[in-house]
Structures are given as structure tokens and as C-alpha cells.
């Protein structure tokens, strides 16, 4: 395939204007020792037809969860995405546009993100949201860094019940020495006295997820004040769909609310690109990383939008920036905004309600089979963990061959507990599918 719209004649003309005989002359600054003297060991060019066939074959060599009866969640969820979302994303004015640094020709992008920021605030109860981060894990890390800067403290207390991959990411970043981690453990839920034990004048923040990795809902209302009493901040990670019906972390005392926004209008896409959302109370905005869109007026007094508070960012503050983040996940944020507009308040409440009810139904029925037991007693959203009394891998594989993804085996996401399975039930799973799954798995 070829996307160079310049003929060889035109190229010759250009070379003449430049004043050289050949294109090679333009590479004279490349030392001979470095100049590649062979073609790259890549294939021949393909026509579009050949390329499409090749890609089709690769795609068909996969059995996507979206075409199985999937109960897999653990940070990436199979929600229904209304058609309109992708149609908007396919508009070239959105997806081929650059970062809106020239606001006069980027009002589409800017207004879309102003609206997205507003929606995240409505969901989380926070006063300000940025225009996206890469994913929940990196948003979580950036919140930890933000809390350290705000409090000028160096330690973060982190719940072990957070997604293991997020914890792994936090540990990787911590190795650079910018902060230290103190873990707070618990079975299914963190224990209040474990939080008390780490509350001291070194702790910049308590970091907890609700729902957590196990789908369980933590007692944020009890945990947040403990952080505040010690002079630290409360960072809460949460699920944005559940926020349709669940009290926002703001009312439980959260200062910074983050999470994985993929459930809002984004496909699973093998885990990426997802969407990190990060929101906080207004008093912390100058330490917030990432791009921010604000409203203003133009020279004619008309409403307009612009990237603002840019002095927080790397292109201005360089080594003192709040973060090195430059590119964000803008298009995924746009998907989330269109999704939320498409479902609206009623629709999001409905989706959450349906996911909750079907998840609770499924858990009850799994327990009834006698093959699964509850490892703990905790309220949960639309995801829950159960212990299986047989060989978990064999069960999972057998159900796979029957067209099911029987949740996620906990240790596959890097946590302990080989016999624990985490089940997520979204609105795409019907009662009939749940009943059929139960019947088959009970008979194994």
C-alpha cells in the first residue's frame, strides 16, 4: 500500500528546487558507518486486499470473549456499546485531529472533553476531572504521586485488595524513590484496624478501591476519615458504571477519585487502549496531572474552550511538571462521553441495576450448586469471588470448550489464591445464559 501522493516527476522537480541531484545527498550527515546498506528485513508491501486477508486470518485465529458467554472481568468488562459511539469515533475530524493546542480549530475536541470532564465529575462527585490518563493503573499511581506532592509526605498506604496489576505498577514506579508503599491487608476487604496501624505523620494518602479486585465494596466511609485524621488524603478507585447507582466516593470523604473507564463505551480490545479517569476536589487542581479543558471567551465574546492550567504540564514545567504525561487517551474519553450521552442518567442506572441483579442472582445459584463457596462475606457490585472445590483450571478449560469463560482465575491476574475465581456479570449476560452455565458447571 502506498500513501505518498508524489510522482517521481514531481520528486525530481522538488530535488531541483532544493538544489541536489538525488535524495541520497540529503542524507549526507548520516555517517557511513551508520548508513544502512541493506533493506530492512521486513516483508514485501501488500495490496489492501492482501493485507485485509492477512489481518482477517489473524483475527480468526482468536476466539474473542465477546463471542463467548463470558463472565470474565477483573478490570476489563464486556458491556454493550451502543452503535452511535463508534460512529462518532469514526468521524475523521475527531480521530485524525491532533491535541487541541490551536483552540480556534479544535473546538470540537475541546468541547467534547469539557463535557467528558463534567460527566466524570457527576459520576464521582468530585469538582474537577482531567481529560484522561492511560488506564486505571497509571491513574492510580499518578494519584499517589499527587498526594505526596500535596502533603509533602513520602509514604502511601495501599490496600492489598486493589487489582494486583495496579499494585505491580505502583511498585514499579516506587522503585524510582519518589514514594514508599505500606500495604494494608484483608481477606476480601481491608480491615479497619490495619488502616489505623499505618496512620501516621508520614502517610500522604490511603489508597483503596471500592469495588476492589474481588468485586467487594470497602468501607470507604470509615477509611477516609482515618487518612484525614493523620493529615493524609483519601484516594479511592472505583467502577464508573456502578456509580450510576452507588454513592459517589466524594460523600464518603474521598479527595481524589480514579479508576478504569473502559466499561464506559470502550471495547475490551485485549486490555488496551483503556481509559484512566482522575478527578479531585478543586483545591488540589494545580497538582493534578494531565490535560484540562476550561471554558472562556474568544475575541468576539463568544463561548469557547481551551486547554488550561498548562503550567502544570511537562511542556512548560519540564523537570518540575506534575507528570511527564503528554499524549493521553482522548479518543477513549470521547467514547465514554458519547456512551454516557447515549445511555443518559436513566440508562446508566438501568445498566447498573441489571448488572447488579444478575450478578447477585448468579452468585446465589453458584453457591446453591454446592461446588462453590463464599470465601468472605462482603457486599459487592457486579463482580464477586468464589472458591471452587475442584481443580479450577480443569473446570475453566472444560467450560471454555463449551463456549464459556468461567470468570477469571484469580492468580491469572497476579494475585494469590489458586482456587479463587472472580466472576463478572454484565448486562450482556441473560438469565438463560446464566442458568445454562450453572447447569453445566454443577454437573462437572
Amino acid at each position, binding site marked *: *500500500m502506498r500513501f*505518498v501522493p508524489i510522482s517521481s516527476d*514531481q520528486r525530481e522537480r522538488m*530535488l531541483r528546487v532544493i538544489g541536489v541531484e538525488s535524495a541520497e545527498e*540529503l542524507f549526507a*550527515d548520516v*555517517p557511513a558507518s*551508520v548508513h*544502512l546498506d541493506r533493506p*530492512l528485513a*521486513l*516483508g514485501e508491501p501488500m495490496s489492501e486486499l492482501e493485507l485485509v486477508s492477512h489481518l*482477517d486470518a489473524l483475527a480468526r*485465529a482468536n476466539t*474473542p470473549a465477546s463471542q463467548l458467554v463470558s463472565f*470474565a472481568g*477483573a478490570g*476489563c468488562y*464486556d458491556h454493550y456499546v451502543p452503535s452511535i459511539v463508534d*460512529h462518532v469515533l469514526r468521524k*475523521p475530524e*475527531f480521530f485524525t*485531529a*491532533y491535541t487541541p493546542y490551536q483552540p*480556534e480549530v479544535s473546538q470540537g475536541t475541546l468541547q467534547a472533553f*469539557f463535557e467528558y*470532564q463534567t460527566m466524570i465529575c*457527576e459520576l464521582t462527585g468530585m469538582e474537577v*476531572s482531567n481529560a484522561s490518563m492511560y488506564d486505571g493503573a*497509571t491513574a492510580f499511581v499518578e494519584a499517589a*504521586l499527587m498526594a505526596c506532592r500535596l502533603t509533602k509526605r513520602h509514604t502511601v498506604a495501599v490496600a492489598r485488595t486493589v487489582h494486583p496489576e495496579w499494585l505491580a*505498577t505502583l511498585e*514499579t514506579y516506587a522503585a*524510582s524513590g519518589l514514594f514508599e508503599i505500606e500495604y494494608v491487608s484483608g481477606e476480601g476487604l481491608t480491615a479497619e484496624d490495619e488502616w489505623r496501624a499505618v496512620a501516621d505523620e508520614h502517610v500522604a494518602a490511603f489508597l483503596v478501591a471500592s469495588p476492589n479486585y474481588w468485586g467487594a465494596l470497602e468501607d470507604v466511609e470509615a477509611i477516609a476519615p482515618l487518612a484525614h485524621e493523620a493529615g493524609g488524603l483519601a484516594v479511592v478507585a472505583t467502577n464508573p458504571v456502578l456509580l450510576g447507582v*452507588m*454513592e459517589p466516593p466524594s460523600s464518603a470523604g474521598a479527595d481524589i477519585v480514579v479508576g478504569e473507564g473502559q466499561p464506559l463505551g470502550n471495547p*475490551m480490545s*485485549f486490555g488496551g487502549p483503556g481509559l484512566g479517569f482522575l478527578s479531585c476536589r478543586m483545591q488540589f*487542581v494545580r497538582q493534578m496531572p494531565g490535560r*484540562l479543558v476550561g471554558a472562556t471567551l*474568544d*475575541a468576539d465574546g*463568544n463561548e*469557547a474552550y481551551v486547554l*488550561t492550567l498548562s503550567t502544570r504540564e*511537562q511542556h*512548560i*514545567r519540564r*523537570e518540575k511538571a506534575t507528570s*511527564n504525561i503528554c*499524549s*493521553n487517551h482522548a479518543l477513549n474519553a470521547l467514547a465514554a462521553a*458519547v456512551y454516557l*450521552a447515549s445511555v443518559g*442518567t436513566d440508562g446508566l442506572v438501568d445498566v447498573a*441495576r*441489571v448488572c447488579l441483579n444478575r450478578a*447477585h442472582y448468579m452468585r446465589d445459584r453458584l453457591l446453591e450448586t454446592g461446588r462453590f463457596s463464599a470465601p468472605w462475606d462482603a457486599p459487592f457490585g457486579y463482580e464477586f469471588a468464589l472458591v471452587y472445590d475442584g481443580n479450577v483450571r480443569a473446570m475453566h478449560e472444560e467450560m*471454555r470448550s463449551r463456549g464459556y469463560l468461567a470468570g*477469571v482465575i484469580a492468580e491469572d491476574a497476579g494475585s494469590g489464591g489458586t482456587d479463587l475465581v472472580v466472576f463478572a456479570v454484565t448486562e450482556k449476560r441473560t438469565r438463560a445464559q446464566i442458568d445454562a452455565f450453572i447447569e453445566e458447571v454443577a454437573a462437572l
Partner: protein
Amino acid sequence: MTERLAHTPDGAPTRGPRGTIFEQRSVRAQSDVVAQLDVPELPVDDMLGGRARENAPELPNVTEVQIARHYAHLASMNFGVDTGSYPLGSCTMKYNPRVNEDAARLPGFAGLHPYQPESSVQGALRLMFELQEALGEIAGLPEVTLQPAAGAHGELTAIMCFRAFHEHTGDARSRVIIPDSAHGTNPATVSMAGYTVTQVPSNGRGGVDVAALRDALDTDVAAVMLTNPNTLGLFDENICAITDAAHQVGALAYCDGANLNAIMGIARPGDMGFDAMHINLHKTFSTPHGGGGPGSGPVCVTPELAPYLPGPVVARTDDGYGFVVPERSIGRVRSFFGNFGVLVRAYAYIMGLGAQGLHEASEQAVVSANYLKARLCAAYDVPYDRTCMHEFVLSGMRQRREHGVRTLDIAKRLLDYGTHPPTVYFPLIVDEALMIEPTETESLAELDRFVDAMLAIAQEAQAEPEMLKHAPYTTPVRRLDEARAARDPQLRWRPTE
């Protein structure tokens, strides 16, 4: 609430923003998002252990036709690569092939859950493996991670690998050297990696001042972080001496791969002595910018550094492909495996173009940039009068000195000529900088249009400087009051009482 109709001074309705989506309320039928509930219904508050939400979030309440029109209007206010040329230096705004968009949306890719069994995702793993190999070959640095989500993320990943490498050899160091022309992400990355920045100046030819670099190099330097071709669009002829000098004191050499579009198939950072680089798939490999992202920043390293890469990476197994974690991995830099949807697009691009197509892309990118420079060097100052690579820097200093017209004004006026402005005020070492990168996907007619616009503006600077200071005139909104936005931040929509 009636829609606000703002007006321009001559009475025409504005083509700019007309109220947010929240202000468009409609009578909405009961939610039809999901079918009727088919399981016994329990009270939400019971299920959530007493955490039911009292007040539902205020989201838009609109029908699909309103959404379609709203976003159609938003799109009409936007300029994308499909609209016209976008010669943004260091961004490589090349055309985004549609076949890539289709590929990423294939259910066999978009519908994959990251924790599906490996046996059920062999196509995806093979794609990732082949992309790793291809990028490694292009970079001349064979070991690759596809995990980082963006260029800056890749930079940080690599510098963290460097840290782990030094710590493993018992040789902790504290500084990283960067040139004064470095992109802002570089020093920000250095800080996030727990190092301090030592800056070295550029020389008269626009390359790194090698003597100053040698002075700054000692055994406390963990790395030298460079861009080559650099942010002036110039190939640093001393690059091998520089990486060599770094190695001699035990420091590692990192290449910011933002400008890879100049040298594909022509030169490879690995062959220049670099130990690691990141690649911006959303620049060099045509994946869309999306209004700011998502990008993808794979990191390519030498075999010596491979053990430290974040895991998992894709490797061949006995019966196909699988994930493996490098033996001394720094861990993870994000959840899951990488921006897979972006990887699919880049893979499609590379497979479609092949070695020949990539080489041609780079060659044409360099020819086009030199062509623009040759046509503009009379009307504008060119700080470094030498052959450029895929981009070059002009300075608006002459226009400022002679007519009080700044690069900002030139950029805003270009909008009236239907082109996106180049990068402005970067790199910092050039006053009133204009960094121009046409890319290889602009036709000669389009390039000439850009030249004509720039020449016309140079004339306007002379004849009507005041006019330029209030440009643009024909865009959906005029110049914005950015100071107001920063002083009195309004960062979300609020209902007016």
C-alpha cells in the same frame, strides 16, 4: 431552555460552540438500553450494603438524533489531517489509513479479553510478536516491549530499565544528561525516574556540544537522553562519538524516537550506539492522534537490557506464542499488555508498506521538508542553514524585529489560509521558533499551498502587521482569552440557576 445563539459582529450566527450537550434536554422514553430484568429484583441499597446513591448523576438526557447532531456540530469545528495539512514539527501528522481502523475493530481483535486463555488468542499474540520483531528490526534494537501507552510512558519505562540495570551491577548513579533542545517530556521523565537533570548546550550547527557533553560526563551519569534527528530536524553527525563517550563512563544512551520518520530503512538508532529507544506508533506508524491520544510507545533495547523490560512480552513457545516475564523485569508500567488496538493499526501499516514502503516514506518526508525549507528560506530566518531531515525550524525573529509580528500571529493567520500551523515556540533554543514537518503524505500541490500561505503572510507582516495580530478571522472562534481561562478556571459545565 432556548439555545443560545451567539453572533459575530456582522450579525451571522456563530459557527463556534452553541451550548453543551447537557443543555439539550428532551422528553425521553423509559430507558431502552437493556431488556426487561429477567431475574428476581433486589433493592439496590441491600445489594450495595447500604451504599445506594441518593441523587442520580446528572448526565445528558437526549435521544440519538440529538447526539448525532451535537457531535456533527462539534466535528464541524475541528481540523484534522483529513481536513488539510498539519505540518506540526515532531508530531508526524501523516495520513491515518482507513484499513487500519477496520482492522482494529475486527471482533477477533476488539472482542478479546486480556485474561482469556493464551490458546484462544494465538492470532493476537502472533500479531504482537511480529510487531515486536518488526520494530526491533527498524530500530536496530532487537528486544522489545509493547507495554507503554505513549511516548513519554516509553521514555519512563526505558529510564527505569536503566536504573534497574545500574542497580543490578551495583553502580547506582544519580544524573541524566539531556540537551537544551530536548522535548519537555524528557526532563519530566528524568524526574519521575528519580534522577536529576544535567543540561548541555547545543553547538553552532544545532547538534550537541560534544566538548560540553564530555565535561558533563562522569561516573555519576546514568544516561544520556537524546533525540536523533534532533528537535531542530538535524541529524547529529557526532552521534557515534556521543554514544561512545557515554559508554566510556558506564552511562547508557537513550534515543527519543519521536523523529524516526526521517530514517526508516536509512539508519537505525541501535547502530548509532543507542542502548534503548521508544517509538511513537502514533507518529511514525500512522496510528491516529485522536485529539490527543491514545498513542503507544514501544521500547526497543539491546539484548543486555532485555532482562529488565516490563513484562509480559510475547515469545514463541513450542506450540505457538505466549507471554513471558523477563527474568529481572522492572515489573509493570500499566495494566494488561499494551494499547492493543493501537498495535493492530501500526502492525497493519508496517505489513502494508513493507520495507520498501517505509524506506520510501522516510525518503519522501526528508525531500518534502527540504523542499519547503528551500522555498521559505528567503522570506524567513533559518537559524541553522544546513540540510534538514524530515522537519526544520524557522524563526519569526525578522518579522518581530521589523514589523512587531510574532510567530504566534503568523501561526494564527495560517488558520485563515486553511492549514494547521506548525509547532511554535519549540525547541526553546530558537526564539520565535516555527517547527515545520510536512510528512510524506502531503501532495506537491498541498506543499505549494502551504508555501504560498507562508509567503503571503510574510507580505502581510510587512503591509498589515496590525491585522495579523488579531488573526484568525475565519475560524469557528477567534483568538481566545487564555489568561481568563487560567485565572478563573471553569473546568466543568454547571447548570445556571
